[in-house]
């Protein structure tokens, strides 16, 4: 433990308090963005670069934008709750829970690191260079497949609810100008993150989140480039693409390799890239769909 870690940990707890105790929802949502970025910093300090990228893009970026967007519509009569005997009891129980959890976590037998040794030893057999990508798309590909399914179910559930009326967005020339420069750059970063995922930190999730940011910015700024809003067929195809390609590869290539979700030896790199590209498009389309924002008038 060193001084920087102690400062970062204290700041994380202070920001969490700011999120949970803020007077109005907008301030709480903005504090949450700062909290998410600080978490990304913690992941980086713990050596988890992949998680840090995803936290910054998804945890702080997309979640923060969702919260700030919702704060205006969900404003209530200020902060309530947190007084009276019930609150006191729940607060005390919460403190006790923290102590019990900390005691349990600290007294855990130190893990020998069997899992990460196994991953390192199996990388050659999997023919994937980056260990996190190997876990996501080879060793535990089933988890990732189901995760994409969960994301699609969330989108279907969100779209099944009748749309909530919301004030129309207005065309803003300054925003349009800024977005005109930022959107192509963000698309470039997304493609880079996807490509980098094969050999180092990056991959479909981080790339999908950045692409979602680009698409949303294009929509908020009313840029003429907004294929998802103008073509419903394209939107649905893009939502389903990731799961469809993943299942097709799992069965097709898996059939050739002798087991579901296995890759034929010479094709691993190409198939993983195809799956990741499809996942990136679907994750981006899903995050945009979950925003539920229509085109500006």
């Amino acid at each position: 433990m060193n001084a920087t870690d102690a400062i970062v940990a204290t700041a994380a707890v202070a920001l969490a308090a700011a999120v949970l105790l803020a007077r109005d929802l907008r301030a709480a949502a903005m504090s949450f963005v700062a909290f998410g970025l600080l978490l990304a910093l913690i992941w980086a300090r713990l050596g988890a670069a992949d998680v840090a990228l995803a936290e910054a893009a998804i945890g702080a970026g997309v979640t923060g934008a969702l919260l700030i967007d919702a704060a205006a519509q969900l404003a209530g009569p200020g902060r309530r709750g947190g007084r009276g005997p019930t609150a006191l009891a729940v607060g005390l129980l919460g403190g006790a829970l923290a102590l019990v959890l900390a005691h349990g976590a600290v007294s855990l037998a130190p893990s020998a690191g069997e899992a990460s040794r196994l991953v390192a030893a199996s990388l050659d057999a999997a023919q994937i260079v980056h260990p996190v990508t190997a876990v996501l798309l080879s060793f535990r590909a089933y988890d990732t497949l189901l995760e994409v399914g969960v994301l699609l179910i969330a989108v279907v559930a969100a779209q099944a609810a009748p749309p909530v009326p919301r004030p129309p967005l207005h065309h803003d020339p300054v925003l349009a100008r800024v977005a005109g420069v930022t959107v192509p750059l963000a698309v470039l970063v997304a493609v880079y993150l996807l490509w980098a995922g094969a050999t180092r930190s990056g991959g479909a999730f981080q790339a999908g989140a950045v692409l979602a940011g680009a698409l949303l910015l294009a929509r908020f700024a009313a840029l003429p480039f907004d294929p998802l809003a103008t073509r419903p067929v394209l939107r649905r195809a893009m939502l389903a693409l990731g799961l469809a390609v993943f299942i097709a590869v799992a069965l097709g290539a898996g059939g050739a390799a002798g087991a579901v979700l296995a890759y034929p030896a010479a094709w691993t790199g190409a198939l993983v890239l195809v799956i990741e590209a499809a996942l990136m498009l679907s994750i981006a389309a899903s995050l945009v769909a979950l925003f539920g924002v229509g085109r500006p008038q």
Partner: protein
Amino acid sequence: MTLWLATGCVLVAAGLVALLLHPSLMRKLLGFNVMGGGVFLVLLAVAPRAAGGSADPVAQALLLTGIVIAVAATALGLLLARRYRAATGRSELPDDEAAGTDD
């Protein structure tokens, strides 16, 4: 590591208390997300480092999955909260006593 474990446990408890106490739906979702951050922190802190100082790849993959599921759940929750607001005019759950008399 003890420092990160302690921080994670405090975040889990604080998020859970907020989730239970705040009647506001959006504040409940904020509590849920802070709690999730605490769970991720505990998970990464107990996982041993791999060779070269990077974190355990299995734990990293679990966290990546968790982050995506958390944003999907949050977005769905916010959408339902908006629907609830549109349908009832409220953005908070009713008090327990008031809810009892509604039936």
